[in-house]
Each structure stands twice: as structure tokens, then as C-alpha cells.
């Protein structure tokens, strides 16, 4: 072991070397002054390091690194949010500009879509803690987007119900002519006319007469259920009533032969009868009525008789094909 060498001092008065004894108090004073001195030096270094050289304290930079890691995680979330926001925005536009007008629904205003996010500051607890404000805005944005997604979702529920219904309605509403325009012609329209048999008085003609050869197929003009098959010798002759739902019924009269049964479900384009001359009739024709909520209306407002026979054939053919694909 290295022993501490004793220190001696030359005393000029006694002309002697004297062993220097260190007293406790002196030691203490020495220690304190050393501590004070070193602290001053420490403060000096500290000052030079932080203020003159401009470096950051190790602890601070460590904390900043950790903070940077958190911020990069927040960045990822922010990017995710931005993507969701874009998608939501596009969906909103489509909802407001496309779906809602189509189904006659009112547009959801931006006020409603952004509702509940003014006034009370619900992110107060983050104040002062969040230096950059990034966290606060992220929290807020997330909550707003979730709310918007919720509003969009409930809107889609409404739209979806109507869309499904509209699609069903598109199939059910009597939208085609009951007979092909090939070899047939309109012989009498809807409205007041001279009675064709007695020719003595004007009567309301509540349907449309389309003439054609006996045996021409009569097709049902929309999806529905056969509700009535009847024979009325002095009136409509053999006739069929089909209920299409949504307030629509159709009547096909003066038929030669009925090919369906009561209660049978039919689809647009199904052949339900053959054209004839039964009942109170002056020639072979089909009397076609569209009844909306119990009132006969002009069938011509519901279909286009002027379409090409080939187009008409395609519609009938298309329905038959669908039938086949369902069955097989």
C-alpha cells in the first residue's frame, strides 16, 4: 500500500524542519472550501456547456428522444386519420350529392355532421401538458371522425332501406307494355270516349286498349301476386288483377285464355294469358288498366309503347333468363 508521506515544513525562526500536523477543524474548512470551489467550478462548466457551447443536458436530450419516439407514433396515427378523413369526406359527398337526391331525402348539412364540437372544451385536461398541441388536435380529430363515421353510418342505414326498397319498386311498378309492340297497336286511349258498343253516350274509359291477333301472349308488367281471376260475360270477360304492392294494381281484360292461378307470384315479363275477345268487346284486344291506390290512372304514363319490338323481346327474354338462373 502506498502510505501517505509525512509533510515537513522549514521553520526560519527555529531553523528546524517541523512536522506539520493537520487539525480536524482545518480539515473541515479545507473540505468545505473544496466543496464550494468545486461547486463553483461545476456551475461554471454547466454554464459553459449549456449557454456558451449551447449543448443540451444529457437528461433533457434523453427525454427529448423519448418524446420524439412518441411523436413519430402520433404521426402514424395522424396519417391513418387523414386517410380515414379523406374516405369519409368522399362518402359524405356521395351521400349528399347522389344517394339523398335520388331517394328524395334531405341533405345532411355540415352543421349536423359536425354537431356537438363547439362550446365546451373537453380537452382541458391536456392543456399545459401538451407542448405542441399535436396531442390535443389528434384527440379532437379522432373524436370528430368517430362521430362523423357514426352519422354517416346512420345515414347509410336510412339510404340502404330506401335503396333496397327502390330496387324492389323498380321491379314491381308496372313499367312495360302488357303485349309486344310487334303486330299490335294502340286502339283506344285513357279518358272520356263514346261508348264503342251502344255509341250513344260518353263514358270514362279507365284503361288502354291494345289490339292484336287472338293468342298473342300477354305479359305481366311488374312483379306481383295474382289476386283475382274472374269471368264477367257482360263486362271485362276473362280478366286478371295483379297486385304489385307499393299501391299499384294492374288489370288485364277480354282475355282468351288465362295461364296463371290465383295467389301465384309472378315476375315482370311472365306470360300470364293470351289475348282474346271475351266479354263486352268489339274486337280482339287487351284492355289494360293501371290502378294506383284504388284509382285508375293513365297507363301510358308508366310505359313507353314506342320502344322497338326487339328491345321489348330483350326485356321478356331477360326476365326468363333470370328465372332460369334462379331455378338452376
Amino acid at each position, binding site marked *: 500500500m502506498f502510505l501517505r*508521506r*509525512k*509533510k*515537513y*515544513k*522549514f521553520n526560519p525562526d527555529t531553523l528546524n524542519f517541523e512536522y506539520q500536523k493537520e487539525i480536524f477543524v482545518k480539515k473541515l474548512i479545507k473540505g468545505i472550501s473544496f466543496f464550494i470551489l*468545486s*461547486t463553483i*467550478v461545476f456551475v461554471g*462548466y*454547466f454554464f459553459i456547456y449549456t449557454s456558451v457551447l449551447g449543448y443540451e*443536458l*444529457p*437528461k*433533457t436530450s434523453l*427525454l427529448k428522444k*423519448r*418524446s420524439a419516439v*412518441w*411523436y413519430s407514433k402520433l404521426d402514424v*396515427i395522424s396519417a*391513418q386519420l387523414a386517410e*380515414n378523413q379523406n*374516405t*369519409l369526406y368522399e*362518402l359524405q*359527398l*356521395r351521400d349528399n*350529392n*347522389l*344517394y339523398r*337526391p*335520388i331517394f*328524395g331525402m334531405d341533405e345532411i348539412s355540415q352543421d349536423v355532421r359536425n354537431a356537438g364540437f363547439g362550446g365546451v372544451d373537453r380537452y382541458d385536461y391536456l392543456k399545459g*401538458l*401538451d*407542448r405542441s398541441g399535436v*396531442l390535443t388536435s389528434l*384527440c379532437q380529430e*379522432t373524436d370528430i*371522425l*368517430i362521430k362523423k*363515421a357514426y352519422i354517416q*353510418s346512420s345515414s*347509410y342505414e336510412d339510404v*340502404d332501406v330506401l*335503396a333496397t326498397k*327502390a330496387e324492389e319498386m*323498380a321491379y314491381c311498378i308496372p313499367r*312495360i307494355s302488357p303485349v309486344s309492340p310487334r303486330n299490335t297497336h294502340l286502339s283506344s286511349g285513357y279518358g272520356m270516349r263514346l261508348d264503342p258498343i251502344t255509341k250513344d253516350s260518353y263514358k270514362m274509359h279507365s284503361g288502354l286498349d291494345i289490339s292484336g291477333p287472338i293468342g298473342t301472349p300477354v305479359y305481366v308488367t311488374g312483379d306481383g301476386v295474382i289476386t283475382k281471376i274472374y269471368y264477367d260475360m257482360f263486362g271485362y270477360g276473362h280478366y286478371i288483377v295483379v297486385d304489385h304492392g307499393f299501391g299499384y294494381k294492374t288489370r288485364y281484360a277480354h282475355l282468351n285464355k288465362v295461364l296463371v292461378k290465383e295467389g301465384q307470384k309472378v315476375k315482370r315479363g311472365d306470360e300470364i294469358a293470351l289475348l282474346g275477345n271475351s266479354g263486352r268487346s268489339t274486337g280482339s284486344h287487351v284492355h289494360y288498366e293501371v290502378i294506383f291506390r284504388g284509382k285508375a290512372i*293513365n297507363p*301510358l304514363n*308508366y*310505359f*313507353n309503347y314506342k320502344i322497338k319490338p326487339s*328491345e321489348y323481346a*330483350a*326485356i321478356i327474354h*331477360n*326476365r326468363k333468363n333470370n328465372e332460369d338462373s334462379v331455378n338452376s
Partner: protein
Amino acid sequence: MGRYNFDKDKFQFEEDKNKSKTIITTIIWLLISSVALSILYYLIFSLFFSTPAEKKLVAENKIIKKEYASINSKVILLDDAVSDLEIRDQKIYKEIFNSNPPDFNQKSIDTTSFLGYDDFTKKIVDYTGHKISMLEYEVKKNDLIVDSLTSFLKNNASSLRNIPSKVPLENFTILQTGAGIGKKMHPYYKTIVYHEGIDFIANLGTNVLSAADGVVQTVYRSSSDKGNYVAINHGNGYITYYYHLGLIQVREGSNVRGGDVIGEVGTTGISFAPHLHYEVKLNGKVVDPLNFFFGDINPAIFRQMLMISMTTGQSLD
């Protein structure tokens, strides 16, 4: 006065020279030991105390850590909800238009796809070089076209006024574009029928505008087929048709200017939903109305409209 040590071998006092060997080494020692001491002091200090800035950082990191968990779970929820909405959107769109909704979020070339290569910088340079030469070629080509157009227009300036270049709908946004010209499924017949115009979907009562200056040729009111409609003759062989209108606000023979209100969107005639069916005829022949909208919309929007009108599978008649 120096210090002295007792040398036991020589049996005499010798001046202690350790301290004053060299001033430089002393200074270096002093420096090193003081720095070491300062570091020690700092370590002890930092264990127990933080500067105000550090305190803030600690608090912030803590709150972010806490909030991150909750935000993250919310974002996962939102992701799910939004993708669910997209699926429902597709379903609804399909029910109405018989096709998928247009997707405008297509990403441009993804630069990270180059990262797989060892020489990816070279690949990027090659790709960019190729792209630049392509663009140069396109620019030259377009220059020629612009030149010929300019010279043509110098001689035929007045003919521009007849072109139905305005989108015939007030406050139009591209998403309102429906089925364009071409073979589309009929909403009721469910068969493919040639669609001779373009559909614009809008709320009932939205103003319908004249596409250019002209004279009202026909005003027709009907509950069947095309419904209430207006035809405007713009001269030079251009006639535009506006079908399924609700209210009509012009009379036959009246003069209209491009952008004038001629009526309101309706759903008269055989129509699936409120919409404007717009047709353009040039010398009696049906032409694509989209091609004339350059006066009203920029190329990017034109491209999007074209895309929607082409991909929409079902007309509203």
C-alpha cells in the same frame, strides 16, 4: 517556500518537487479531475432534480403514453367503421348504378417500390429520365395541336358561341355525374339499352341551365317517356335536350343565353329518381355531351367525369 520530504535513504530533507513538476500537467490534472467531479455532481443532481423544461417533457411523455393507448384503440375502431362504411357505400352504389363507385384515391408512383433494388438510385434516375423524354414528346405534340387550333379559331371565332360548353346544372359537383352515353342497364327493364345522353343526379327543384346561347325550339309537357322536356337550338347544327324536368321556365321561341335558368330538375316520365337527362345532337346525330364541357371544367375534373360516366352501369333512364 517549498515543502520538504524526509528521504530515509539519504537521511536528509529534500525539497518536494512533485507539486511543481510542470505547470501544464498540473493544469491538465486539475481540469480532468474537475470535469470528472462535475459529471459526478451532475449525475447526482439529475437523479433528484429536473429542470423546468425536463419536467414538462416528463409530464408530456406521460400524458402522451396514456392518451396514445386510448387514441390508438379509437383509431382501430374508426378504421373498422370506415371500411365497413365503404362496403355499404359500394352496396348502395351497386344497387342504384349496377357498378362499383369510382375510386379517385389511386396512388401515383410509389417511390418505396424502388427500395428493393440494390441500385435503386439508378432505377429512379432511369425512370425519371424516361418520364422526362416522354413528357417532352407530349409537349411538342400538344404545341402543334394548339398552333393549329389557334389558327383555326382566328378564322372562326363566332362558332365557339354555339358550342354547348356549360354544365347544365346549377352548383354542379362531379359526384353528381351519372351514366354517360353508351350501353347502360335500364333501371326498370334491367336490359342493356343504348343511353343517348348523360345523367346528372340532383335534388328536385335544382335549377337547370342552358348550355349555350340559343333559341328554345321545343317545350313539351308529358307524363310519359322523357317527361317534360326542353330543346334549345344553338345554331351551327347544335341542339341540346333537357329531359324529365319538373317546372319549365321558358317558352318556345324565346332567346336564352348560356347559363340562363330554363327549368328545374324533376322526375317526370319514366325516371327512376330525380335527375336531369341531358343530350346533345350535332346535325341530328347524338354526340357525347361530355366532350363539350371544356369551357366549364378543368381537365382533371373532366377526366373524373369521364371515368364516372363510363363506369356507371345503370342509367336512371
